[in-house]
Structure formats: structure tokens, C-alpha cells
């Protein structure tokens, strides 16, 4: 289970309090009825699904109830930072996915925060 820092509550809380809410920084088209089918598919269905650094939304559903953004490594599941919704993308150096997947809980226990 992950420990997640809510930027509103300013606390590390258990993953059980949170809901993952998909890729972050996707702008809804201004006039959605005017865009083409390709553009709609791009907006609605296509996602980056990165191996490595990813930007995603979370919701502190059993806490403050608010949405926020996070940068996380999808290979180690480690959170790099969390920040409030509406803030610009927190650009972090792309470290590249390490091929080594984390096999044990102990391996990540030390840096879960």
C-alpha cells in the first residue's frame, strides 16, 4: 500500500483514503462538439501509460475530497512529488524507466515516502 502526501491536508496518508483519477494535465477541448472523431479519441481514450515518470491525478476521497496532481515512477511506484490542482506541471528530470522491477515490499519500504 502506498503512502500519499495530500498537498491540501499536508499529510502523508494511506492509499486507502485516495482514488486514482487517471492521467493529469489533459485539457478538455473548448468546443467538444466541433472536434473530429480522431481528436475526440485522442482526448477521451488515448493515454500515455508511461513506464517511468508519469503525471496523474489523485483524489483524497476519504479525506478532504479534493483532486490533486502527482508525479510518480510507475516502475518503483515511488511518488516524486504531489501538488495542488491548477498548478503547472512540475517538470522533473526524466530518469528513464529502470528495467529492474521491484520484487519485494522490503525493497521499497525505506523510501515509501
Amino acid at each position, binding site marked *: 500500500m502506498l503512502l500519499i502526501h495530500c498537498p491540501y491536508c499536508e499529510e502523508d496518508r494511506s492509499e486507502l483514503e485516495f482514488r486514482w483519477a487517471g492521467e493529469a494535465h489533459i485539457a478538455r477541448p473548448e468546443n467538444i462538439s466541433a472536434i473530429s472523431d480522431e481528436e475526440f479519441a485522442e482526448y477521451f481514450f488515448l493515454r500515455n*501509460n508511461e513506464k517511468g515518470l508519469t503525471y496523474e491525478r489523485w483524489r483524497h476521497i476519504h479525506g478532504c475530497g479534493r483532486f490533486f496532481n502527482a508525479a510518480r515512477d510507475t516502475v518503483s511506484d515511488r511518488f516524486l512529488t504531489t501538488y495542488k490542482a491548477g498548478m503547472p506541471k512540475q517538470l522533473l528530470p526524466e530518469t528513464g524507466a529502470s528495467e529492474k522491477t521491484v520484487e519485494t515490499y522490503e525493497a521499497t519500504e525505506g523510501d515509501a515516502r
Partner: protein
Amino acid sequence: MRRYSVFAVAREAMRAHKGWEAQWTSPEPRSAYDVIIVGAGGHGLGAAYYLAKEHGITNVAVIEKGWLGGGNTGRNTTIIRSNYLYEESMDIYEHSLKLWEGLSQDLNYNVMYSPRGVMMLSHNTHDMQSFKRHINANRLYGIDNEWLTPEQAKAYVPPLDIAKTARYPINGAALQRRGGTARHDAVAWGYARAASDRGVHIIQNCEVTGIRRGPNGQVLGVETSKGFIGAKKIGVSAAGHSSVVMEMAGVRVPLHSTPLQALVSEPLKPIFPCVVMSNTVHAYISQSDKGELVIGAGTDQYNSYSQTGGLQIITHTLDAICELFPIFRRVKMMRQWGGITDNTPDRSPIQGVTPVPGLFVNCGWGTGGFKATPGSANLFAHLIAKGEPHRLAAGLTLDRFRTGRLIDEAAAAAVAH
């Protein structure tokens, strides 16, 4: 290839088992092939086998980053069934189930297909209505599926608690008797052996790092950790890593990769006769021929490529199993692992052509790809050989996310993920 038979066993018994040959060869890659398949899981190896067997294309390489069958093929809970709701799904899963029935004979390899029955428990009125709708749709389409009362379910699975005072009371169940299990490793090994025998190259420990494209955009081959390998046609069958591989060709696919966990108990004497799953309380259990209880847990909620997963996910499913089968409360769990599943927005697979000429994709099988292995492989081989989908897989195109013709298959995961 020396065929396996009772006579082969007898012959080898007489000479200290020194005559068994390697099941497949591990050649160095050629500079080019007619077809390259990325990913040596059941789907990829099977596609290579059917390309050679049914379409006469034997100049084929299957390229695998790790070891053969080491991804989701060796990590699933080995369940086979075809009781899906929509015709597109029933077509492909029933095609697969029919191939399962003759697979051991076809491959001359015992995949231990065991049609022991797959039972889905109903706990409330919504479950009952939904399952009966599935049963009716299946029977109208010629697929077996039947409704059981709680007493009939108990007779089929004696450890089941059907007391009205149970924490999760049961008001019936759906049973597909032809559903069951198979030995997942044997499926990968059997396909590898049969494909290798027909001249297919299986190249393990060779990671695809890029897809090279020509001036018209068509594929020229793959860059790998063993150098460039040319091919006019490339089939990507990379499960949880499909997004990563497709991105190399500049194609975005509507997938998100999440860990799905499974666990097994210490071995017990035969006690559990079939597969039981409960969507509502998320229980998913069968017993392997070795005697271990095989339990499928849920997916984590977030994208991840770590083959692990949260502990709360497995405790959730064990809670339900202990309530439904009180007899298992003191059984010890022995091993737990995760696999990376590639999930589509409509929970149906993607198999079809892509915007890149010569590039074909088979992905999005999500939490239920094992049961589809022979059918998917068979139809993927057809797609690669002919350049267009087989009738039974015509609805599974990548294009459906543009046209909106989704296959919104809630039954794709028999348990909620």
C-alpha cells in the same frame, strides 16, 4: 521432433531417460525474417505456431525480452471460460474454448486442460438478473451456461457456505460446465516446441528497443539488444508492455497497465472441484492439480509496471474467501505475485491493423488473456498472414475508439477490477 507418447516414455525408461531432446532450439537471430512477433507469451508463441501450421509462413521469429512464458502467461490463475455477453466476445472466447478442447492432441503436449466447470456466485437481485441475461445470451448463441439454485451450487461445490445467515448469502449461481483450467506453463512450452519444430526462431533475452520504419512509414524491422533484425511484418503481442512497444512505432493505444495479483496456498488434498468466482465480494478460487488453492486478487487502482501490488488487494479477496468457504480459514498462503495487465477503456481486447503499414497489434486482454490464448493466437496469425482480421475478430479493431463502436464487456473480468 520426437513425438511424446506412451512408447517414448517406455523407451526412455529403458535407457535412463538419456534420449529426451530439448523442446525448442535457441538460435542466433537471422538478419531478417518474414514476420517478427514481439513477446514470447502464449499469444505470441501461439501466433507463430499457427502462422507456420495454417498459413505456411515459417520464416518467423518470436522475440522476447525475458524468458519464454515468464510474463502474464506464467502469472495468471489459469481459468478458461467463454460465457461473455456480447457476440464479439463470445465469438473469440468460444473459438478459443473449442481450440482448448483439442490443444493437447494438436500440440502433442499435455496442457492439462480440465473442463471442471466455472461457477459464478450470485448474491443479490442485480447479480441474478445480470447472470440470467448472460445465460440466455450464451445459450441463444450455442454456448453452455446454466442457472443453479443455492442447493445445486452446494452440491457441485461442497465447501460452499449457503446458509441464509452467512455474511455473504447466495441466491444462486451460473455454471459453465465446459469452463475450467489448464496448466499455463505447458501452454507456452507446448506452443514453443511445436513452433520451433516448424522452423520458428524463438529468441529469448533479446529486448526490442525500437521499431525502424521506411520512407512510406512501413515497418522495416526492429532494433534489439542483439542488433537490428529486419521484417516486413511485425506483430506486437506484449501484454502489459504493449503501450511501450507501440510507442516505438509512434502509435498510441488506449491502454493502462496495472498490476494484477494472484496467490497460492499450501498444497491440500483434492477438496475443491471447480472454479468459483464472486464478482460482488471479489472471491476467485480454484484448486490446482498440485493441490494448491489458486486465488486471484484484484488490480491496483493506479498505473504501474511493478510486478507486485498492494497488500490490501489480496487481503480483500481472502476476506471474501474465508466467508464463503469457512473450511479454508486456517489454510496458509504460500506465494504471491503480480503481473502487468493491459486494460482498455471498454475492457475488450484490441486485435487488428494499425496506422503503420506492416504493424499489427494484439493487446488489451487485460485481466482475462489466458483463456483466450489459442483463439487469440489463431486469429492473430490469420491477421498477420492475410493483412486483415478474421471474421471472428473483426470487431476488436483499434479503430473502434475513433468510431465509437465499443464492446462494453462488463463480463470481461468475472470479478470487479
